[in-house]
């Protein structure tokens, strides 16, 4: 306990220097700005703004990126509530009740509860990251290649099970991601793999290229297909503060959402989208009046918003301790860290304590800033949303293009992104979910490396994955999850066949 406080104190010392506070503020502000815009997720935001941080010192750069990350997370909820468009995929469920509240003239309390819930979840998650960081680092030492491989399998299975739609199709997506990640030079032998002799491919396909193409451009192509009507809540947002009964109703939901979100955030493959869905469903299940959900229940805003924020932060735990990015955004963080010469993993905490703890402390400061900047600025965000989509998407496209180009100064990357835009659009048309693919793509190289190492150490004996206890447990959980997910779909299919 004393250590924890001491460490956080050290972190605070780093985080509250004027430059770092400024960077955190700029990050949170820009993140919110982009999060508010539908069509650009936190992934594309970080990719776009990554070049900005090149000139900064490592701590400052990471603080700013983290600020962007949860800023985008929070900005997404504002649009959900006010215009019924999730600015961010993790705030899809916030639309359900948040927008209903806004239509009943309670946009203020909805926004305030979202902010308060996020802030509370952020505080808890920050402490959790600080508290779990050190013990988990020692767990990381128990992890050999076999365990890492199994952990990543578990993460991928999680992503598959929790993705909507059919399980086999989600599995194919994971494998597609793994396969695409194999393109480029082999890490051990340096052999060119599946590049068809194209020199630009020898470094592999950039993660940003795939992510931005599939989510950024793919999303725009889809949005153009259905020119949805946008109903903006025109009424002035008045009466920001929630009433006492509101707070009472929301308090439990915030607490449960935080706990659920924190747990799901730690698991690889989890992440904030799943956390928000899970929290909403959970609230709905345990509620005494489930019929209120979807008609402006304040719990329906409080639970998912606190859950997604908690998950967004605890997702840093596997990254900072095990060096495994649990979701695509964290994978981008790995990229950012590598650019600044930091290798994510257990050694960060011991070798660069001020970086580790500075970042954790800045998370808390960032959350505080979000509450402070967002509530007074709601009006500005609403005005931003009145920009018609026909002007918005060319801006998104050009910023994405410039962002991708500036990563390597390579026009080839930009063209590749266009191709992945088509691929993403095509996949969604065929009801394949791109999210598991991205995770497979991110984890692919790490998985292969650990698989190879594990097999080499075990002298080609594949049973090593089930004879080592930790690895066997992880694989066992993955297997059970998969079976549980597949069972109802088989039964469902059978029912279909029988009714015919």
């Amino acid at each position, binding site marked *: 306990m004393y250590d924890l406080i001491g460490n956080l104190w050290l972190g605070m010392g780093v985080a509250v220097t004027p430059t770092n506070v400024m960077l955190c503020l700029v990050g949170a502000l820009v993140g919110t700005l982009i999060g508010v815009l539908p069509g650009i997720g936190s992934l594309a935001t970080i990719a776009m703004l990554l070049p900005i941080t090149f000139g900064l010192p490592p701590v400052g750069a990471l603080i700013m990126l983290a600020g962007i990350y949860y800023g985008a997370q929070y900005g997404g909820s504002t649009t959900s509530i006010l215009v019924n468009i999730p600015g961010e995929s993790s705030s899809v469920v916030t639309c359900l009740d948040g927008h209903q509240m806004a239509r009943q003239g309670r946009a203020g309390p909805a926004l305030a509860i979202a902010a308060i819930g996020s802030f509370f979840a952020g505080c808890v998650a920050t402490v959790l990251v600080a508290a779990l960081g050190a013990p988990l680092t020692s767990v990381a030492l128990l992890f050999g290649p076999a365990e890492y491989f199994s952990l990543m399998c578990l993460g991928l299975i999680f992503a598959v099970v929790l993705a909507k739609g059919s399980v086999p199709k989600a599995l194919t997506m994971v494998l597609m991601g793994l396969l695409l990640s194999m393109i480029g030079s082999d890490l051990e032998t340096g052999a060119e793999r599946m590049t068809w002799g194209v020199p630009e491919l020898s470094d592999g396909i950039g993660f940003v290229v795939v992510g931005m193409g599939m989510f950024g451009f793919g999303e725009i192509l889809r949005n153009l*297909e259905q020119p949805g009507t946008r109903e903006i809540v025109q009424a002035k947002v008045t009466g920001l503060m929630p009433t006492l009964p509101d707070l009472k109703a929301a308090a439990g939901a915030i607490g449960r959402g935080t706990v659920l979100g924190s747990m799901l955030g730690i698991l690889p493959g989890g992440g904030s989208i799943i956390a928000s869905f899970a929290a909403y469903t959970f609230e709905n299940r345990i509620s005494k009046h489930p019929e209120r959900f979807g008609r402006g229940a304040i719990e329906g805003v409080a639970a998912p918003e606190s859950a997604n924020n908690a998950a967004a932060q605890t997702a840093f735990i596997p990254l900072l301790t095990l060096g495994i990015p649990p979701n695509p955004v964290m994978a981008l963080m790995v990229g950012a860290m590598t650019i600044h010469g930091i290798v994510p993993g257990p050694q960060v905490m011991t070798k660069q304590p001020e970086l580790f703890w500075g970042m954790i402390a800045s998370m808390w400061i960032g959350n505080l800033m979000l509450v402070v900047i967002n509530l007074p600025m709601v009006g500005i965000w609403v005005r931003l949303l009145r920009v018609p989509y026909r002007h918005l998407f060319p801006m998104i496209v050009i910023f994405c293009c410039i962002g991708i180009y500036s990563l390597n100064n390579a026009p080839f990357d930009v063209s590749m992104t266009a191709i992945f835009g088509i691929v993403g659009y095509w996949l969604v048309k065929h009801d394949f979910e791109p999210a598991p693919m991205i995770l497979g793509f991110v984890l692919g190289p790490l998985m*292969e490396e650990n698989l190879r190492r594990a097999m080499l150490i075990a002298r080609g004996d594949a049973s090593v994955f089930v004879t080592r206890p930790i690895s066997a447990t992880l694989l066992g959980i993955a297997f059970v999850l998969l079976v549980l997910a597949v069972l109802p779909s088989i039964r469902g299919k059978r029912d279909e066949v029988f009714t015919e």
Partner: protein
Amino acid sequence: MSDATPSGDWSRTAAARRKYNLVGGSILAVVGLVLFTTSFLLQNPVPLTVRAAIIIFIAVGIAISAGLLRVQNPQDVYGGMALILLALTAFVASNDLPGMRGFAFGPGTAPRLFAFTLAILSLGVVVGGLLTAGPDVSGYKIRGVVFIIGSILAFAATIRPLGLVIASFSCMVICAAAAEDVKWRETIIVAAVVTAFCAVLFPYGLNLPFQLWPRFW
């Protein structure tokens, strides 16, 4: 990832469906044929099993286009077929890479392992799509695809020789044409403003090495 999934109740008439299968099956067969030809151009001969799989793939493509196979769930059948094609392509592409050496993985082991699993799973998806009914693939918005992708490619082609100002302006104008309710006067103004903003922000504000104007200036 988002809730913008294509509407599930999109359906075609029987005649339109036949035409869709004719075109779709033919495309699969042709691409399969290209892959088959490519497999003869490699240094090492492609294993017989892979070649047989490609031939079967082409045959299935022809059967779909001829209407011999009843495509009950077009989304699953075409999606799965495309993924099988990807897996077969990966087999051909990783053919010249050495595999296992003793108990050590070679560079080709993991790609082939993943490709094999992908092929099997996709096969399951295809078979499922042949047996159980599902929604049609909704129509493509060709206008959006052409202009958006065109604008991105235009940016890629012009950024080096012509600089940021021309590249981003032309990209935005081409891109705006993707919307059906495009208003040219507004678009030109927005494009000019955003271009000016980018021209200040990226090279000066963020200190990135962007070339603003054409090289020959």
